[in-house]
């Protein structure tokens, strides 16, 4: 491996570029993905609203498409193109906009393989931004991925670092099923070690980010780095925490979580999504069902309150699960007694 530091944004961009280079059927489409590039007077303007696809237009002329502000149309077009042999990567600017194209995802993309008896494949990737923390208010800050996890036929990916972002996106593009690739908008400038070579990270394989014996902390997406910080704090007070990043929530690697809980007997699940019917409730329910006898304490779920993401800055800061929330939850379960 030839390793160097890349940002989350650069890692995603490099994955797109390497796959477009390798496979001419890969195309990129979305609002402002070219961003005026190719128009008179413009070379490479936006590259998507936060610049993730910047530079691709010049490298792959004709394969980076700007679309109208009509998610139902371009997501539908991407799904249709996927059934006809392309591997489109459509950028749904904010996951909050899924509402207007949900039928294309839920009733079309997710169902084709099943309803056509395996004769149709839909290798489409929908890249989309989620998460709070950028002062973008209630319609641009949600962590809506549990809804996609609910739908059979979709694969749902939550990269937690630049390394995961590149490898999981390449895997998403090569996968023959529709993939919802959820990028946390507050992580684009986070940097980390990324190999120069192309590589894939298999779906359904959790990453044990840190080993520990007292409590298992399962965390998703941006919350993985919060859980790591919490684990460091816990270590200084004598609590040894294991941190698990599922990396994909559909499919979910429950075995790795169960194996860890068997050892620690205690579980904290950290999920930035709204607390009802989110991944924390789902994972907790499955662990209780499969490993009740291993648990030494109730499971703690760390999620935001059940309210829209506030626009007021102090309230938004309070809304997002914090490192301290995770530390407190871990202490509650390690100190719990009947």
């Amino acid at each position, binding site marked *: *491996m*030839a*390793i160097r530091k890349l940002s989350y944004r650069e890692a995603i961009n490099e994955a797109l570029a390497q796959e477009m280079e390798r496979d001419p059927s890969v195309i990129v489409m979305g609002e402002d993905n070219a961003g005026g590039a190719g128009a008179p007077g413009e070379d490479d303007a936006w590259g998507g609203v936060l610049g993730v696809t910047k530079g691709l237009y010049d490298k792959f002329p004709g394969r980076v498409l700007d679309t109208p502000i009509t998610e139902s149309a371009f997501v539908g077009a991407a799904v249709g193109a996927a059934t006809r042999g392309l591997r489109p990567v459509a950028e749904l600017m904010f996951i909050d906009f899924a509402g207007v194209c949900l039928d294309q995802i839920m009733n079309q993309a997710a169902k084709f393989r099943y309803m056509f008896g395996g004769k149709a494949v839909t290798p489409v990737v929908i890249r989309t931004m989620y998460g709070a923390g950028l002062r973008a208010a209630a319609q641009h800050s949600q962590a809506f991925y549990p809804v996609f996890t609910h739908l059979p036929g979709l694969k749902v990916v939550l990269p937690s670092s630049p*390394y995961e972002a590149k*490898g999981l996106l390449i895997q998403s593009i090569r996968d023959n099923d529709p993939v919802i690739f959820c990028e946390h908008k507050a992580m684009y400038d986070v940097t980390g*070690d990324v*190999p120069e*070579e*192309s*590589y*894939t*990270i*298999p779906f359904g*394989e959790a*990453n*044990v980010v*840190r*080993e520990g014996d007292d409590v298992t902390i399962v965390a998703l997406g941006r919350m993985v780095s919060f859980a790591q910080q919490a684990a460091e704090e816990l270590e200084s007070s004598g609590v040894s925490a294991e941190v698990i990043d599922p990396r994909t929530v559909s499919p979910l690697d429950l*075995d*790795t979580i169960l194996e860890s809980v068997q050892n620690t007997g205690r579980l904290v699940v950290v999920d930035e999504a709204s607390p009802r019917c989110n991944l924390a409730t789902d994972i907790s329910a499955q662990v209780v069902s499969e490993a009740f006898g291993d648990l030494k304490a109730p499971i703690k779920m760390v999620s935001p309150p059940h309210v829209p993401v506030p626009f007021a800055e102090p309230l938004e800061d309070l809304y997002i699960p914090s490192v301290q929330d995770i530390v407190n939850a871990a202490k509650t379960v390690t100190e719990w007694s009947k």
Partner: protein
Amino acid sequence: MPKWGLSMEAGKVTDWLVSVGDEIENGTELCEIDTDKIAGELESTWTGVVRALVVEVNVSVPVGGTIAVVAPADVPQDEIDAVVAEAREQLESGAIEDDSGPKVQTIEVGGHQISYAVLGEGDSEHDPVVFVHGYGGDKNSWLFVQEPISADRVTYALDLPGHGASSKGVGEGTVPSLAKVLLGFLDAVGVSRAHLVGHSMGGAVITAAAADPSGSGKVASLTLISPVGYGPDINAEYLRGFAEAESRRELKPHLLNLFADPGLVNRQLIDDLLKYKRLDGVDEALRTLVAGLVEGDKSAVDVTADAAGFGGPVVAVWGREDKIVPASNAGGLSGSATVHLVDGAGHMAHMEKPHDVIAAIREATGT
């Protein structure tokens, strides 16, 4: 603070094995060091008296930071104090320029992009040492060995095709074809004669290189660590399992066979190997290599005739607890080589007992 591995940025001294006033020499164990990847013992490449220990135990020190001062006994104490003060000031300010570690470069050899780490300076008296890793390994596996050996000569640790940061196509992927790449590498970096050190498959590769007509006169000595090709026994299940494993859960049981101490198979090692295995082209490279290395449950490689024709020194190191290429094969070396069987080491003697491997290389190079 040494640089053990190309990604190491800092380490902690966890235990001092010497005290102020101790006389030390080349090979004296100075301290135990822990990095985020690996723990090991630092060996002295200096001779003199330990005049000061600069850092406390369990404090993170950047690579290149001064951890101790060694000087002849007659250097006045105030000079030592001044050096310690300067070192502490540097550590506190964080102004440490690290240029101590190996430099990584890439060079083209017969259509392969070969990545290598070069360290040390030498002269015409001291031929360079070239390290060749085994199947699934890379140049980083020499992290405990390359630095001490580079004290008096240039050292190169390369990534064979299909490994590390080299290009992943292996071509035929047979031992003789890899030996050609190794000889091409020597030409490409301008080394006319070298001491070769090879681990496992790399041991077979360096032996084949010594026997290759185009390698004639280029090979000064061979140091073999658990080499392939000297006997029929090989853990074919490991080779195939390593190639096929796709997850931590699948890979770990195979890796436990590598070391005498299974505790060395930590999360970091597994993660690094999985990261390597996920690179495009690695699967195919490993499968091609396995096809050349084993036939059924036995070794498909025999380099004993190559070794017999080599006139230079041959020194072998074999972990007694090797579960990949068992030490029972060492009989294939009798007569042609000095063989050191090492207690407490498995297949990875250069990581588990680096001291013994360093000593063997010094024996082979005549230093």
